[in-house]
Every structure is written in structure tokens, then in C-alpha cells.
């Protein structure tokens, strides 16, 4: 049942510019860093001398948290608004599916779409580094950390966004929340470690950033469960 639901959801995002945005996010980040490094090549290669790849990942990593959080808000809003715009929640939920499944499949699709954009970011970062002549001595672990950790640490926001976007028909609510989260995510350094919005920046005081990822996944799971239970009980059409 999940498989078939997933296929219908995949069909619904055709011609909604979703795939374009999923591509544009990482492409935009890489394009900006390309300009940054091309325009200031001498200055930046001197500053990052000895760890050019690390410097590149650091520069990319600065942009990733706000971009991925805004990406989440927009993509999730599109997924939810497909049903709001056509007033098709009733139809969808009248089909022989469980409400729980509908909610979880929407989340799963959003999660996978953004994961694809992270993979594209990783490929883009590799190509950029090679094109800039940083050599083949690639720092693989920092590459993976830069590409995927901020996203996984930001998963609680994704879980919250899907609930907001579905429960509140006015997408301004979900998008405003996304904007707030992205602004906060840039100030991870100054926030206490226990604030979830500080996790995507990976600038918490824990020795290993994998801590941010596990906490993110754990909290996302809790929020997703609460969101699902609430959605199942709620009359969505009036929202």
C-alpha cells in the first residue's frame, strides 16, 4: 500500500517545478561558491593553503543550513498544497488508505527529494574542487559531513513543516516558520546546544558532529509520530 501511495504522490509532483527546485538548490550553492572562488582565487587559496578541500567544504557549509531549511519549507509546502489547491483531501482520504499512510508517504517523499538535492550537492562540490585544481587528495569524510549532516540534523524541522503545511491551509504559516528556522540556523554558534535549531549548523560543542545527526533523527521521529497522531484525529478539510 505504501508503495502504490508513493507512486501516486510521485505522479502528482509532475510539472510542479519540484524537480527543478531540487536541482536548483545545490546548483545555486555551487554556482555561488564557484563565483566566490573564481573571483577571489588567490586570496582564498592562500587563506586555505594546505587544506584547500577543507576550505571549500567550509565555504559551502556556511550556506547549506539556511538553504536546505528554506528548501524544505518550499518543497513541503508544494506537496501539501497539491491537496489544498484542488480541495482533494476528502477524495484522497476517501480512498482505501489509512490517514497515517497518507501523512507518512508525503513526509517520505519530501525526505527523499531533499536527500537527492544533498547527493547533487556532493557531486557538485566534487566537480568544483576538481575544476579549481585542488588535486585528487579528496577529504572524503568532510565531504560527506558537509553534504548530508546539516540535512539530517535539520530533520526535526522537516517533520514539523509537513505537519504545519498540511494542518494549516494558509501556506504563509508554514513558510514563515521556515524563514524563521533558516534565520536561526545561521546563529548556531550563539545558541545553547540543546536548541534543535542550532544543530544543522554543526557548530555545537559536541566533539563529533554525528551527535547532531543522531539527535536530529531522534527528535524528527518523535515530532513525526506526534504529527501523525494529530493528523489522524483531525478534520483536515476545515483547516
Amino acid at each position, binding site marked *: 500500500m505504501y508503495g502504490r501511495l508513493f507512486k501516486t504522490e510521485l505522479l502528482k509532483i509532475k510539472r510542479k517545478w519540484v524537480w527543478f527546485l531540487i536541482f536548483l538548490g545545490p546548483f545555486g550553492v555551487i554556482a555561488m561558491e564557484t*563565483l566566490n572562488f573564481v573571483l577571489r582565487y588567490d586570496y582564498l587559496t592562500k587563506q586555505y593553503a594546505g587544506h584547500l578541500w577543507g576550505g571549500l567544504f567550509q565555504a559551502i557549509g556556511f*550556506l547549506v543550513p539556511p538553504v536546505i531549511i528554506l528548501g524544505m519549507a518550499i518543497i513541503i509546502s508544494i506537496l501539501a498544497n497539491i491537496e489544498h489547491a484542488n480541495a482533494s483531501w476528502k477524495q484522497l482520504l476517501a480512498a482505501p488508505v489509512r490517514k497515517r499512510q497518507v501523512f507518512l508517504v508525503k513526509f517520505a517523499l519530501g525526505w527523499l527529494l531533499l536527500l537527492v538535492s544533498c547527493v547533487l550537492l556532493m557531486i557538485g562540490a566534487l566537480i568544483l574542487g576538481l575544476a579549481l585544481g585542488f588535486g585528487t587528495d579528496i577529504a572524503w569524510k568532510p565531504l560527506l559531513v558537509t553534504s548530508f549532516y546539516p540535512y539530517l540534523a535539520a530533520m526535526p524541522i522537516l517533520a514539523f513543516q509537513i505537519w504545519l503545511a498540511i494542518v494549516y491551509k494558509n501556506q504563509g504559516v508554514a513558510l514563515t516558520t521556515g524563514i524563521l528556522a533558516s534565520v536561526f540556523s545561521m546563529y548556531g554558534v550563539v545558541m545553547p546546544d540543546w536548541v534543535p535549531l542550532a544543530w544543522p549548523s554543526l557548530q555545537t560543542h559536541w566533539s563529533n558532529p554525528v551527535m547532531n545527526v543522531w539527535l536530529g533523527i531522534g527528535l524528527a521521529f518523535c515530532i513525526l509520530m506526534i504529527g501523525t497522531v494529530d493528523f489522524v484525529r483531525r478534520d483536515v478539510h476545515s483547516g
Partner: protein
Amino acid sequence: MSFLKTIHAEFYKFRKTFTWTVLFLSPIIAGFAGFFTYSRLSDGHPSKPWMLIYSPMATIHGMLFLPLIVGVIVALICRYEHLHGGWKQYLVQPVRRWQVYLVKFGLAAGAIAVIQLLMLFALLAAGILNGIDHPFPLEMVLKSLIGGWIATFPLIALQLWVSTAWSSFAAPMAINVICTIPSMLIANSATYGPYYPWAQPLLAMMPNAKSAGILFVSAETLFLVIAGSFVIFFVGGLTFFQKRAY
């Protein structure tokens, strides 16, 4: 007469929807940021205590929040008409299309002005709660807040164009985000920063001693970049709106 009624109707819709709550978010957050930055860094007696509070406030507000919230406010202002064929009902009233467009622009600009005013109150509150007794640098703060406000005009104009064009909320937001994110890098560049419209809210709000002009952006930036892009986006949007079939 119809002009006044249009203003009244727009204002009514603004009050009766969730839109107005958005105005308070950034001033509250920036106020807290300013308050805590000061209490953390002010050991000893800083020579410019108000600046110590205001600088983080202006950065957190101007870099992402202000340009992005413009998109939300404009989309919310157009939302009511996009629902249930509201445009058709609205435009068969004895009002001119350009009047509707102008009033919606004015409402959005007014909303941003209220945000900037609330920023002033947030700064005052953060300063008073920290017990600052230095004279308040009113001229600097007003220059910054008014500059930031004017710098959003081209952004409002573009968002109004795309928000009247598409009923979906996500499309105008995506465009807004795509244009705003690069300013995170571009605003740092002394060479390219002054030419990028989306970097102007931040640049116009950052107080700098060098700028002797009326605002914290140079006259070239003000007239060429801000006014220029405003005219292009506003005329483009209005022309499109005049011909648009709903």
C-alpha cells in the same frame, strides 16, 4: 472615492487575517538578539552601547528576514483574491486595476514600515532593559531603518508581480529565496554588493561612519540600483496585471 474604499477594504482584509501577526516576529527576535549580545559582551563600559545592541539586530533582521518576509507579506496580501475566484469579484467592482495594484503595493510597503517602527521599539526596549543611559543615536537609527525600508521597495514590486501572476504560494517564495540567498555572499563584497538589489536591505541598514549621504547606501546605489530596479519591477508588474485575465 473608490480609491478610499479600496484602501479600506484592503486594510480590513489585512486585519482580519493572520497577516498582521507576521509583523511582530522579526522585531521580537532581533530585540532578544540585541539584548543578549549586549549582556554577553558589555563587560566594561563600551563607548557606543546602543550600537552594540543595534548591530546584531540590524544583521539578523536585514540579511535574510527582511527580504524574505517581504515575499510572505505580499503573497498573503494577494491570497484572499486567489481563493475562490476573488480576483474576478474584486475587479468587476467599480475600481481601476491600477488602483487595486497601487493599494496593494502601498499596504505591503506600509506593513514593512510598521516592522521597521517595531524594530525601533525593540531597540529601545533592549537598551532600557540593559540600563543604558547614553544618549540615543536617533539619527543613525532612523537613517538605518528608513534606508532598509526604502531598499525593500524593488523587492515588494517584484513579489507583487509574481504573487498576482501565480496563485500558488510556493512559486513567489521560491523566486524570493533564489534571489535573496546569493546576497549572503554578495553583501560581503565591496565591489559587487552595491549592485545587487536583494543585498540592499542589509547594506542600507548597516550603520557605517564613512557614508556622509542621506542614507547608508551611496547615491548611485540608491538611484541606479534601488530606484532603477523598483521602476522596472513595478512597471512590469503593473503592465502585466492590467492585461492579466483571471
